[in-house]
């Protein structure tokens, strides 16, 4: 990897304006925490940064790892299923006509309904969480990928076909590289979606994971713990997005 390339890789940027706005928020929060009792607000509702820092220090890494594993595992399964189905629907008009309406219906179902279905249908906690994540994220991958395939310029498709590729070559040499930018966008959208959905799914029945810890914090009326776990979730989201952005930058170097 060249020096120029390393320097141009996007990492979590932290411009001065962001730092200032975060600092202002932190000061305002601390002030509010200090003034809370005199304003009639219970002290536990707005914990000080010291309390929050103590909660962060007590974060159990295993719960972070479990949630992360669930998110990444489900995203990979969703992506593979979405891509495979999108390719089949692109190839077969009949399949497209039958499957697409169902996919649109799946996308319209609220996450909470999926969680309730999962609880009623499946005994295993891990399967429940996986099911909810896949059924929410899979259709997004499918629709994005299918749209991207349909948007591959007709000119490029006829050029490729004029050289008489096999079906596999057609997909590997043209369609797949052509849809890579959309796949990355879809991953970014789905990471954010999955982080939010996994938390809700873990609230129901899970005994590990960040969602479960949030549920415990709520039972203990510990706002500082909720705050700490939320910070972890946001950090996790930014880290995953940064990772995808890094891979994207590397694979799509031809665009720069």
């Amino acid at each position, binding site marked *: 990897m060249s020096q120029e390339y390393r320097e141009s890789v996007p990492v979590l940027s932290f411009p001065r304006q962001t730092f200032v706005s975060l600092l202002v928020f932190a000061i305002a929060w601390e002030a509010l925490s200090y003034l809370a009792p005199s304003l009639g607000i219970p002290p536990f509702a707005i914990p000080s940064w010291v309390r929050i820092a103590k909660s962060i220090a007590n974060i159990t890494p295993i719960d972070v790892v479990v949630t992360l594993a669930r998110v990444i595992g489900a995203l990979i399964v969703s992506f593979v299923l979405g891509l495979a189905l999108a390719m089949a629907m692109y190839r077969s008009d009949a399949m497209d006509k039958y499957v697409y309406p169902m996919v649109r219906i799946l996308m319209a179902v609220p996450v909470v309904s999926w969680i309730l279905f999962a609880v009623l249908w499946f005994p295993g906690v891990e399967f429940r969480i996986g099911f909810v994540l896949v059924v929410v994220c899979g259709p997004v991958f499918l629709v994005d990928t299918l749209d991207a395939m349909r948007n591959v310029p007709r000119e490029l498709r006829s050029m490729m*076909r*004029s*050289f*008489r590729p096999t079906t596999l070559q057609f997909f590997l040499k043209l369609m797949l*590289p*052509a849809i*890579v930018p959309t796949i990355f966008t879809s991953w970014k959208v789905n990471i954010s979606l999955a982080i939010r959905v996994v938390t809700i799914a873990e609230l129901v029945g899970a005994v590990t994971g960040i969602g479960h810890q949030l549920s415990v914090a709520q039972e203990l009326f510990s706002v500082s713990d909720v705050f700490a776990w939320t910070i972890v979730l946001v950090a996790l989201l930014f880290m995953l997005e940064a990772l995808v952005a890094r891979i994207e930058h590397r694979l799509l170097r031809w665009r720069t």
Partner: protein
Amino acid sequence: MNTTMSGPPTIEVRGLRKVFRQATSGQQVVAIDRLDLTIQPKEVIAIVGQTGCGKSTFFDMMIGLEPPTEGYIHIGDKSPYADFDFFRGKMATVFQQDRLLPWRSALDNARLPLELMGRPEEEQRERALTWLNKLGLTNFVNAYPHELSGGMRQRVAIARAFAVQPEILLADEAFGHLDEVTAAELRDTFLKLARESGATAVLITHQLEEAIAVGDRIAVFGKSAKLLADIHVAKWAESEYGTLREAIQTTLQTQSPDPRLARN
């Protein structure tokens, strides 16, 4: 049935008809109406006609992307549509726009058809580099399409076509979108390389100067690809090219052969 062709074959078009149904109105459109045409091996033929006369449909049918409604195109004893795979590595195309894959370098674009043919990596590289060098792109083999000018991109597209070492070369308005100087320069290079390679070349164009400059023959298409004139350019002295141009223009305007073309 033969599986190989020894040298460029004769291309025979007989009673070719192509009818499309318009998606919006459902009406039938006759794009090509009973075309007969024979193209001899190693011949360079230019097909001229006004926009919408069926040239590009004929081009797509020559490639094998569209089936005939009636009649046939036979290249040797094979149909480019029915025997689609047979023509892998035997036919190459240059399109109106370069149609390069933006994520591939010039070299990788030029060797794309060789990859599809399953040629060894070393051969792919060597052949693609040879043609890129011939087309003056030695210093740009690693450049991506967006880093190249329009003329350079079209050179890569030409290199991609010649790298196949095809027996049949098809070009659809390949130089029409370039500026006049670049187009003339590239057209001359293309013609020189086509002659050297010994391929049969079919060039579709709407520019009469280009057709006269390039073709051994000029097929003038009227509406629905009706063959209005089949001109052997060799029968015209260079000093008569102005008259020839006028006669073709009149033929296209009136949709009937100009009497001055009768010498064919």
